[in-house]
């Protein structure tokens, strides 16, 4: 089959055009936020002080925000590649090999991602002026300080495009392309007791590291150790999370008399990994916010007490900047999660339109259909937030305990922020209600 014939078949139209627009938007947002994070990190790194905390802040900011940004970029590319199922099946039917169809799909996803990255890069030119509203090391950020070196500005866009291409390729590995259609390979997560014990052991070691970490280790060692501890615990959550989500959903599905909850629970049981992935960025944010917010609360108490004398000027400035970083971290994370939810839910409605039409036909009201979609996301998100909060509280037990004792308002603020995050997720799902309404009202529904 000729390339021009293939291009004709993959030209976006109808629902795939909606997904293309979403992929463009997500790629643009990912690019913009990536530039913002790197600019802020460089501003922290370049502060005129020897305070090791600034180095930790700079590396943490990149480390913690790049993960959700990569998740957003890759999830979008994966979905975009997989949502072209009917066209991919047609290409197979017309004689294209599976490998060729994959190449065509990945190329399409990569080209769209490149366009989104280009748009995001253009808009990132305004970032130094916007970020200039923030204060670091007691001074407002200057636009001149925020411009990235030319090699970094040139390197970031191709890296993001490559990431989208690789993600699309990995996403397509999860589907079987046959001339009769596209099926997703599904594997139900299994968790042996051995793995569970290993997870508990990892958590224990991480607790030990966090309790014994000190300035004396030096910046590099401290960053590496903390990063490894955080990554290990996130790995544990990633392993245990889908299993717990699946078990709880199973238990609910067997008992509930609420049809919306029944469908949501069964849907989670069907694909707990995907459900967990949607909430994983929120889990990371919660996991970091609990100790970081507790530490800020404790430091705030010291700053406002007679013990203020024990803090150097650099430490006081860094404390203020750490607060800026936590706010930036939470804001970007929540934005990323809400974007990701909106994109995955749009794709889910389009991919599962036949199911929603079937439910509509038997008389399930649209508000119940939307409630069921919302429950599917929030049930997992609640578990992710609560699970991560427990893991973080265990890991940074003394810090959380001190904050509870000395700065309960900060703890309350953390709870409010997390509640806002969960509400934002609901908003992300609700924003896709019109997509479902369009699916239910499409003229083809009557054909």
């Amino acid at each position, binding site marked *: 089959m000729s390339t021009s014939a293939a291009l004709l078949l993959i030209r976006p139209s109808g629902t795939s055009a909606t997904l293309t627009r979403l992929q463009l938007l997500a790629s643009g947002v990912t690019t913009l936020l990536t530039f913002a994070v790197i600019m802020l990190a460089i501003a922290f790194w370049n502060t005129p002080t020897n305070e090791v905390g600034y180095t930790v802040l700079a590396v943490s900011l990149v480390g913690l925000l790049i993960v959700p940004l990569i998740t957003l970029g890759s999830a979008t590319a994966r979905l975009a590649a997989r949502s072209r199922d009917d066209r991919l099946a047609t290409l197979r039917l017309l004689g294209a090999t599976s490998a060729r169809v994959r190449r065509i799909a990945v190329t399409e996803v990569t080209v769209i991602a490149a366009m989104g990255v280009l748009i995001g890069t253009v808009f990132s030119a305004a970032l130094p002026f916007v970020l200039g509203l923030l204060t670091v090391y007691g001074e407002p950020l200057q636009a001149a300080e925020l411009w990235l070196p030319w090699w970094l500005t040139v390197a970031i866009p191709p890296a993001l495009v490559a990431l989208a291409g690789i993600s699309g390729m990995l996403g397509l590995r999860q589907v079987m392309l046959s001339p009769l259609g596209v099926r997703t390979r599904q594997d139900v997560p299994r968790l042996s007791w051995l793995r569970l014990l290993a997870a508990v052991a990892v958590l224990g070691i991480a607790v030990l590291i966090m309790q014994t970490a000190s300035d004396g280790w030096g910046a590099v060692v401290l960053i590496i150790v903390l990063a490894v501890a955080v990554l290990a615990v996130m790995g544990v959550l990633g392993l245990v999370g889908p299993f717990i989500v699946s078990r709880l959903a199973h238990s609910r599905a067997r008992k509930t*008399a609420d049809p919306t909850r029944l469908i949501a629970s069964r*849907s989670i049981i069907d694909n707990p990994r995907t459900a967990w992935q949607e909430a994983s960025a929120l889990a990371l944010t919660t996991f970091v916010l609990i100790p970081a917010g507790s530490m800020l609360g404790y430091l705030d108490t010291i700053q406002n007490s007679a013990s203020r004398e024990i803090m150097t000027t650099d430490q006081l400035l860094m404390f203020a900047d750490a607060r800026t970083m936590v706010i930036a971290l939470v804001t970007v994370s929540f934005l990323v999660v809400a974007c990701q939810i909106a994109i995955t839910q749009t794709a889910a409605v389009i991919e599962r339109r036949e*199911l929603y039409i079937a439910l509509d036909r038997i*008389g399930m009201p649209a508000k119940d259909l939307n409630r069921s979609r919302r429950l599917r996301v929030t049930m997992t998100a609640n578990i992710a937030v609560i699970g991560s909060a427990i893991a973080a509280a265990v890991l940074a037990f003394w810090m959380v305990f001190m904050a509870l004792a000395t700065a309960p308002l900060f703890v309350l603020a953390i709870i409010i922020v997390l509640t806002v995050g969960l509400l934002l997720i609901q908003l992300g799902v609700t924003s896709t209600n019109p997509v479902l309404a369009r699916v239910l009202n499409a003229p083809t529904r*009557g054909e």
Partner: protein
Amino acid sequence: MSATTDSQHSRAGAQTLDWLLRAENLSKAFGQTQALSKACLDLYPGEAVAIMGPSGSGKSTLLHAIAGIISADEGKVILRRPDDEGLDDITTLSEAKRSAFRLHRFGFVFQQGMLIPELTAEENIALPLLLLGSGRTEAVQQANSGLERLGLAGLGERRIGQLSGGQAQRVAIARALVTDPTIIFADEPTGSLDSRTAEEVLDALLATNDGADRALVIVTHDEQVAARCDRTVRMLDGRIEATR
């Protein structure tokens, strides 16, 4: 049952006392395509009606319009309330009220069953009852009774993907029956089945009318299916051309 064109409608006047559903002058266009043109149809209790016609003739559109799945551009669909307590005009109802109407008064069986793949067979059947507010235990009990009636006892815990095509269609029939609907609508219910299984599914579907005051409407391409119904409505280019 009678099915008439607009001009023929008055000739069916003698039967108007006991009709269950009356569709009057239904028209529906999708863009430039006139899918339905002034179609009239009466349904009577206990009857099985086949709607036939070539692809694109408007038979599914007619079924969707009288079932309140889509709203017609013109015309009325009137349904008699149980115990003759009045009439409801479905065409004047909002989308939400038409949903409620479908849930309370109609049952559906489609070509692929349109069952929910995530749910077990018994949950699929229990779903309309749960939507109506029944308790879990009661809904599941009724679902299992339905499975037993249709020869599927013991398969309640299976997911739809673990059932054969014929079994899945019988689950869809059990789901359609579970709310004791006034009318059951079936769109190509045997279209994807082999001849023997199709026969079994058709038997089960026609049995839903045994001793009941409900009507059964089947959209089909299959003359053998139509032959087993009480009456056949033939459509062409959105119009009802003939009835048998």
